[in-house]
């Protein structure tokens, strides 16, 4: 590569427009917020297991309530945990970081199509994140109406927290929109010579569909955020019905609005959003399973078609979050049916991944372990979506810990595991060094055990009918002193003790992450040196130096075959990279 003039530090690492630097910025920001959101949850879990007792060591943070977490603080933390994890943790990491770093490399591009917009996208995230963080320092604290921010509660919330939340969301939405435009354009326009659509690595496909979901689903939430801002700042009543009486006073509003309107606009985004959380994870897992089972993915094409179908259908299932808002039979049947239909492509994708393992030669390195564990964990999460999707079964389960258990199985031991796998897998490409396997395996085993100990008991509590968003973990429903006179049936009493188990496990989960962080920092300087292609992989990113320089590849790059040509009969090596002629004759049939 030709030599470039040295750029000053701030141009190179802060205001950079290089997709790799921006990818790392996204990763660090997303990682920070994941940790922060987890920190909030560790405090909340204390309150659920030991309500009203002072938090050990950190009690000084809650001096107003004697060191314990008050219901109000709990609500703010809960809303912010959800917001931070979803919009500022997983989206930046799974979409922003992996998409930015890996996607251009995998399609053989020199950079993103719009490098400046790419940087702007990151900085919009940064500003949004700062606004959200700033809201913690407001006198009344941050938003406290759940990550769903349902009005009228959110509308009439006192203090500026909810307003900060809305403005922060506008920035986060802008960030995702800019990112999405960039990803789609890059994938369509900057594919290397020979990289046809059916030769794209599955990760690129998942990022492409994710970008489309973000592009078309986010704007309605932005519109809704404007409407809620109007309600809060200009005293309109978009979401306020006529005749509200708040704390004994008839509210001074024009009325005529609809609280359900917000729910429609919110879930129009938020259901596609949950697929935004899972699709990149599926892509990462597919890459790693192909590499480490040393054979092509089974049913690549049907996976791609399922993915597209899934993306499309995700726009017509949103009201399964609203089953019990008073829906009639017709629309209810419609949404149940679409929900059941959308589970089919997931079943197909997962089946293909399972079947891909058959006949492989499985290497159990750390990324592979996380990727393999992803399958049953996502399986549990996805399967528990089915009873929720059948509205009659959802009557009992709605807004209980069963829902919390359902989606944490998909996002925590699901998406987070895939993200861990991705970090272990692409770390050598990013830094030129391998991560430590021993620490990695400790991290894996610990995470697997404790994730399940946190989230499985939630299913049990949920079936028993314990509600979510209770700062005391349901104790009010089981306490004989509080349940005014004895003789009331308590559905909570038998499962309350599980709270302690979950809380201890959540902390243990936190401790296990220390191994990961140590590994991460230590390996940057001390890890084993990695070659260009340490995993003997076939996709394009492994043709670039580790780490890739400015402009990514040594020279023009072309693609000759399908993405996962492993163990081709008759070839000596067990991998036939896309960027080299060779591979199975079948895979070279399609020309550009």
């Amino acid at each position, binding site marked *: 590569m030709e030599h470039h003039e040295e750029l000053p530090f701030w141009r190179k690492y802060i205001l950079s427009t290089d997709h790799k630097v921006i990818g790392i910025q996204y990763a660090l920001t997303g990682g920070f917020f994941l940790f922060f959101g987890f920190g909030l949850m560790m405090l909340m879990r204390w309150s659920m297991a030991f309500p009203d007792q002072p938090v050990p060591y950190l009690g000084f943070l809650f001096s107003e309530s004697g060191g314990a977490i008050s219901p109000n603080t709990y609500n703010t933390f809960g809303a912010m945990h959800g917001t931070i994890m979803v919009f500022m943790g997983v989206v930046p990491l799974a979409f922003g970081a992996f998409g930015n770093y890996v996607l251009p490399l995998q399609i053989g591009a020199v950079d993103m199509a719009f490098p400046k917009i790419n940087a702007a996208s990151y900085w919009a995230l940064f500003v949004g994140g700062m606004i959200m963080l700033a809201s913690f320092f407001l006198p009344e604290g941050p938003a406290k109406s759940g990550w769903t921010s349902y009005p009228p509660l959110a509308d009439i919330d006192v203090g500026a927290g909810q307003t900060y939340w809305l403005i922060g969301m506008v920035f986060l939405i802008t960030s995702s929109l800019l990112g999405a435009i960039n990803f*789609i354009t890059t994938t*369509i326009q900057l594919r290397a010579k020979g990289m046809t659509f059916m030769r794209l690595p599955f990760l690129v496909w998942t990022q492409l569909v994710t970008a*489309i979901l973000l592009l*078309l*689903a986010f704007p*309605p939430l932005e519109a809704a955020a404007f409407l809620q801002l109007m309600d809060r700042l200009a005293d309109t009543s978009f979401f306020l019905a006529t005749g509200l009486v708040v704390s004994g006073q008839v509210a001074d509003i024009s009325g005529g609005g*609809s609280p*359900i*309107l917000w729910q*429609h*606009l919110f879930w*129009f985004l938020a259901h596609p959003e949950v697929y935004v959380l899972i699709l990149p994870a599926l892509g990462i897992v597919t890459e790693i399973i192909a590499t480490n089972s040393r054979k092509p993915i089974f049913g690549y094409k049907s996976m791609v078609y399922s993915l597209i179908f899934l993306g*499309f259908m995700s*726009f*017509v299932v949103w*009201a399964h979050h*609203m089953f019990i808002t*008073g*829906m*009639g*039979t*017709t*629309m209810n049947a419609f949404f149940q049916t679409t929900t059941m239909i959308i589970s089919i492509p997931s079943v197909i994708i997962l089946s293909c991944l399972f079947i891909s393992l058959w006949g492989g030669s499985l290497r159990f390195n750390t990324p592979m372990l996380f990727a393999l564990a992803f399958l049953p964990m996502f399986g549990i999460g996805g399967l528990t979506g089915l009873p929720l999707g059948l509205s009659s079964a959802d009557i009992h389960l709605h807004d209980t810990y069963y829902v919390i258990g359902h989606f944490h199985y998909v996002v925590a031991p699901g998406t987070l595991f895939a993200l861990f796998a991705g970090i272990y897998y692409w770390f050598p490409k990013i830094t030129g060094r391998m991560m430590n396997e021993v620490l990695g395996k400790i991290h894996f085993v610990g995470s697997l055990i404790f994730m399940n100990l946190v989230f499985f008991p939630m299913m049990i509590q949920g079936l028993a009918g314990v509600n979510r968003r209770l700062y005391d973990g349901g104790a009010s429903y089981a306490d004989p002193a509080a349940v005014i006179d004895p003789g009331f049936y308590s559905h909570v009493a038998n499962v309350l003790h599980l709270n302690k188990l979950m809380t201890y496990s959540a902390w243990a989960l936190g401790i296990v992450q220390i191994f990961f962080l140590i590994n991460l920092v230590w390996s940057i300087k001390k890890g084993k040196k990695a070659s260009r292609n340490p995993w003997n992989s076939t996709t394009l990113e492994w043709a670039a130096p580790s780490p890739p320089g400015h402009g990514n590849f040594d020279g023009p790059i072309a693609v000759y075959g399908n993405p996962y040509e492993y163990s081709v009969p008759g070839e000596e090596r067990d991998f036939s990279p896309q960027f080299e002629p060779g591979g199975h004759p079948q895979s070279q049939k399609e020309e550009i």
Partner: protein
Amino acid sequence: MGKVEGHDLEELNSHVRTCIAIFVGLLALTMITVSVSYLDLPVPAAISLALCIALVKGSMVVSIFMHLVSEKEIIFWSLSLTVIFFIFLMAIPVITQEDIIKQTIEVRH
């Protein structure tokens, strides 16, 4: 007269002529829709007429001013997708809102 590469001047001239025709058409339709609104038609008829005219005007702008008619396939597809989701977004919330648990019993006051 010179031109920027990649464009055909003949085509451009005819495109500009079409645009001016469309411009006149848009003005005319604006006048029509305003005058119709003074006719005091029944509300449903007025709404449908106004929306139809707006749709015609809109498609004129999109297809000619934004020259979508001669645009590439990929753009066409991504816009079709948008239109489908737009229709979902417009229709499904209202339909759902109309199909709420309703039965004959009203609270008697």
